[in-house]
């Protein structure tokens, strides 16, 4: 995924090397180098799939074990906010894909615009996530010493629980809502961390794109970053129904 030019060679060397400066000298052709970096990026993404897969599996098992607690926990999430975040992320995936197209067809200002839009949409996602997190902090739904069971023991005192028609829960089951929120914060938190890393790289790419780095025929970096960004989108595509949607009627 490197986009820096290959290490400069001596004068004698450069006479032998008749290839673009961004082609590493251990590759025969640019096509071979692109195939290799693309393959490496996919291998990295597969390790990410396995990593998130563990979290998803934990969620599925605990959801089946402590089902009433997970239903009541998910009633505390806002579908409008989660849905809006899904829209932002899907749109950012589209602008990123358009950015790849701009780089491939050497449209410099188009690429910069697409990257900036992706950057802004990503920040918007994190902004809404912050609103959701702060609500959880206010209600003491963050697992730990200050965790509060009030929304689950006395749902009439909680707007979200009341709207969902929750019934008061026995203490031992109510305590398991903490497991739900542990997984909620672990999964959305890891996802948000990936977004923060992606947005940081996007910031760097915007500077490089303005200098024309990706519109001179070498697009591997933009393309492979696109793969990463779409992968983060896919994780959210699964998080949204699993955490927000599937327990609305119990």
């Amino acid at each position, binding site marked *: 995924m490197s986009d820096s030019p290959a290490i400069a060679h001596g004068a004698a060397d450069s006479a032998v090397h008749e290839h673009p400066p961004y082609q590493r000298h251990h590759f*025969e*052709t640019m*096509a*071979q180098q*692109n*195939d290799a970096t*693309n*393959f490496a990026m*996919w*291998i990295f*993404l*597969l390790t990410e*799939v*396995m990593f998130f*897969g563990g979290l*998803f*599996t934990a969620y*599925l*098992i605990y959801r*089946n*074990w402590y089902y009433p607690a997970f239903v009541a926990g998910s009633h505390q999430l806002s*579908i409008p906010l989660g*849905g809006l975040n*899904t*829209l932002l992320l*899907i*749109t950012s*995936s*589209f602008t*990123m*894909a*358009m950015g790849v*197209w701009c780089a*491939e*067809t050497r449209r410099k200002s188009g690429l910069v615009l697409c990257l900036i839009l992706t950057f802004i949409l990503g920040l918007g996602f994190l902004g809404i996530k912050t609103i959701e997190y702060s609500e959880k902090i206010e209600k003491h739904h963050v697992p730990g010493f200050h965790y509060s069971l009030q929304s689950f023991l006395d749902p009439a005192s909680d707007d979200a629980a009341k709207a969902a028609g929750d019934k008061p829960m026995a203490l031992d089951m109510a305590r398991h809502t903490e497991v739900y929120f542990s997984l909620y914060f672990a999964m959305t938190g890891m996802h948000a961390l990936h977004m923060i890393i992606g947005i940081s790289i996007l910031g760097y790419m915007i500077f490089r794109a303005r200098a024309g780095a990706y519109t001179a025929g070498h697009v591997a970096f933009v*393309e492979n970053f*696109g*793969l990463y960004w*779409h*992968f983060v*989108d*896919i994780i959210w*595509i*699964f998080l*949204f*129904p*699993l955490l*927000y*949607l*599937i327990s*609305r*009627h119990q």
Partner: protein
Amino acid sequence: MSEHQEHEHHIVSPKVYAIILLALLTGTALTVWASYIDLGILNPIIALGIACTKATLVVLFFMHVKYSSKLTKLTVGAGVFTFLILVGMTLADYFTRAWGRW
């Protein structure tokens, strides 16, 4: 390495991207709408079905796998297969062992 088969680079057009964006937005609207209807056991199945469809669209078109080399296709396929084996076997183990004795 001269016999190495290199993959021709395919540029996906903005039209394809726009169609996929529309499909993804429709899928999102559909999954939110379906979640408000009480369908019992079907609710999670429909939600996950739509999510899998959306993820497949992203992988095939936004991530260019449909237009990629056989190596990339095989890599993605092997990854999904291994993922399903790991998750499936783990769930099968949990669901058939000491169930209800937590």
